């Protein structure tokens, strides 16, 4: 067998699977988004209409779509920086020469990442119960009146953000820790001889050296956070007052609850375009900073 043919033998099965079960559906999704494919059409293909960009225009006039977009941006804009800040703090602590039992702490802090999101969302739902939850109990001990975490439209999203940060910070922590460990030690030595404080070292050595890693982490996290779904599905069902309905939750309801598959495909593509646009922008801003 020639190496060329062998190579094709090796790559074809995987490419076929990816092609048939991923790339082809993506193209089909675009085609579908130009139609009004729904339950009526599932029952009888005669009920299918080509609507061009109608679904997209329609969505832009749907208040619920804008609200879900707003909710998603809220989640991303608050959640991503918070998540990265926590990850960075944890990574700095773990990287510190003063820290003991590093292996244990690393594992402990990472544990939430591997847990099943549905299961821990169930836990958090009770953790944040207005009357019987441990969180309000703890607040009560320091004299703060109970907060209706998941029941009020003002607190529901912050609660979900806290949950997401708890669940995810360990992931970025590991990547940032690797980034920290790659910074040459003599840089710090020199700074120490100059008498620079911890904060000065952080600002002038650590953060600049960590920038490429930070950019990467920010992009991964942002595109992940745009895909918020399981948390509101389990904890709030999108409520109260639709305050936790994310774009993806909206797509799930349109598509797999009401079976407006054409419209849901349009939502999926808008979300995709959004993620692409935002991450491209981040990449561009990040790169521009590199060559002043």
């Amino acid at each position, binding site marked *: 067998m020639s*190496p060329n043919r*062998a*190579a094709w033998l*090796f*790559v074809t*099965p*995987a*490419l076929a*699977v*990816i092609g048939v*079960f991923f*790339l082809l*559906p*993506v193209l*089909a*999704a675009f085609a*579908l988004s130009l139609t009004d494919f729904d339950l009526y059409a599932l029952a009888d293909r005669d009920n299918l209409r080509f609507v061009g960009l109608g679904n997209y225009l329609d969505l832009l006039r749907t208040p619920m779509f804008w609200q879900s977009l707003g909710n998603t941006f809220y989640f991303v804009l608050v959640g991503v920086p918070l998540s990265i800040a926590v990850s960075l703090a944890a990574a700095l*602590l773990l990287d*510190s020469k*003063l*820290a*003991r039992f590093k292996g*244990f*702490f690393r594992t*402990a*802090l*990472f*544990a*939430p990442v*591997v*847990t*099943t*999101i*549905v*299961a821990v969302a*169930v*836990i*958090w739902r*009770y*953790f944040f119960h207005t*009357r*019987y*939850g*441990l969180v309000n*109990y703890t607040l009560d001990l320091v004299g703060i009146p109970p907060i209706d975490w998941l029941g009020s439209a003002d607190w529901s999203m912050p609660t979900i953000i806290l949950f997401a940060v708890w669940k995810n910070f360990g992931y970025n922590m590991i990547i940032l820790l690797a980034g920290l460990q790659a910074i040459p030690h003599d840089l710090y030595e020199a700074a120490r001889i100059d008498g620079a404080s*911890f904060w000065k070292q952080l600002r002038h050595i650590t953060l600049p050296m960590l920038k490429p890693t930070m950019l990467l982490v920010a992009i991964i996290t942002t*595109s992940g956070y745009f*895909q918020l*779904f399981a948390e509101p*599905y*389990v904890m709030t069902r999108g409520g109260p007052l639709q305050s936790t309905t994310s774009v993806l939750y909206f797509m799930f309801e349109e598509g*797999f609850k009401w079976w407006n*598959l054409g419209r*849901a*495909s349009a939502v*999926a*593509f808008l*979300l995709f375009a959004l*993620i*692409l646009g935002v991450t491209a922008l981040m990449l561009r801003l990040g790169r521009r900073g590199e060559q002043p």
Partner: protein
Amino acid sequence: MNPRLAKVLVNGLLIGFAIVSLAPLAWMLSVSFMPAGEASAFPPPLLPSSPTLANYTQLFERDGMGRYLANSAFIASAVTLLSLAFNLAAGYAFAKLRFKGRERLFKTLLGALVIPAQVAMIPLFLLMKSLGLVNSYGGIIVPAMAGIFGIFLVRQYARSIPDELLEAARIDGAGELRIFARIVLPLLKPIIVTLAIFTFLASWNDFMWPLIVLSDQTYQTLPVALASLSREHVMDNELMMAGSVVTITPVLLLFLVLQRYYIQGLLLGSVKG
């Protein structure tokens, strides 16, 4: 700052982090052993007054948890095995075998990595329907048999295999399949373990697609079953905690045993681009 004070501060903060990370999990375990209704009290009890296995018994005997556990284990194992076979072959070929259009093909694949999986879900459902795979194990397993990320991971690792080794084998007259099985696979072992645990955990924890494809309880995985149980038994705290314990424990143990490989994969995977 005083070095001793700094040391106390650093370790104290780490302990704080560890408590926040682990407390919900510990509380889950504790509540799962409480008799029904005990956790709905103020102040919330931290430990069960008289530990009981009743919640677990009910889950397995009445709510069919054993079935869901088996479903999850089977699906995650099958996905892991199959996707390993497909991704290893492809990743190795992209790293070490020369063929026409290799670079362009690989770039296309990498480009497709930015497409969120949800974009494909709707047509994929219709495709699965026409293949008769809705409401079956196949509906989950078949589309997961190969993944771009897995191929990428294998390729990154396989590039470190010295070409001389492969050339020497070829000169000795070994066929490509034989080279792959006898020389390449043993060298790839660390990345095989890494990819296996990655895939297994991802498949075990996956929620949205199984939620869509598996409406029949017979095939449901743990997360899907747990979500539906928790909507129906909103008031049964203790039962749901036991369900969470059953769902989380297998993956947590797997991670604890193989965490080195998992973290290696995480770092390898994040240096793309």
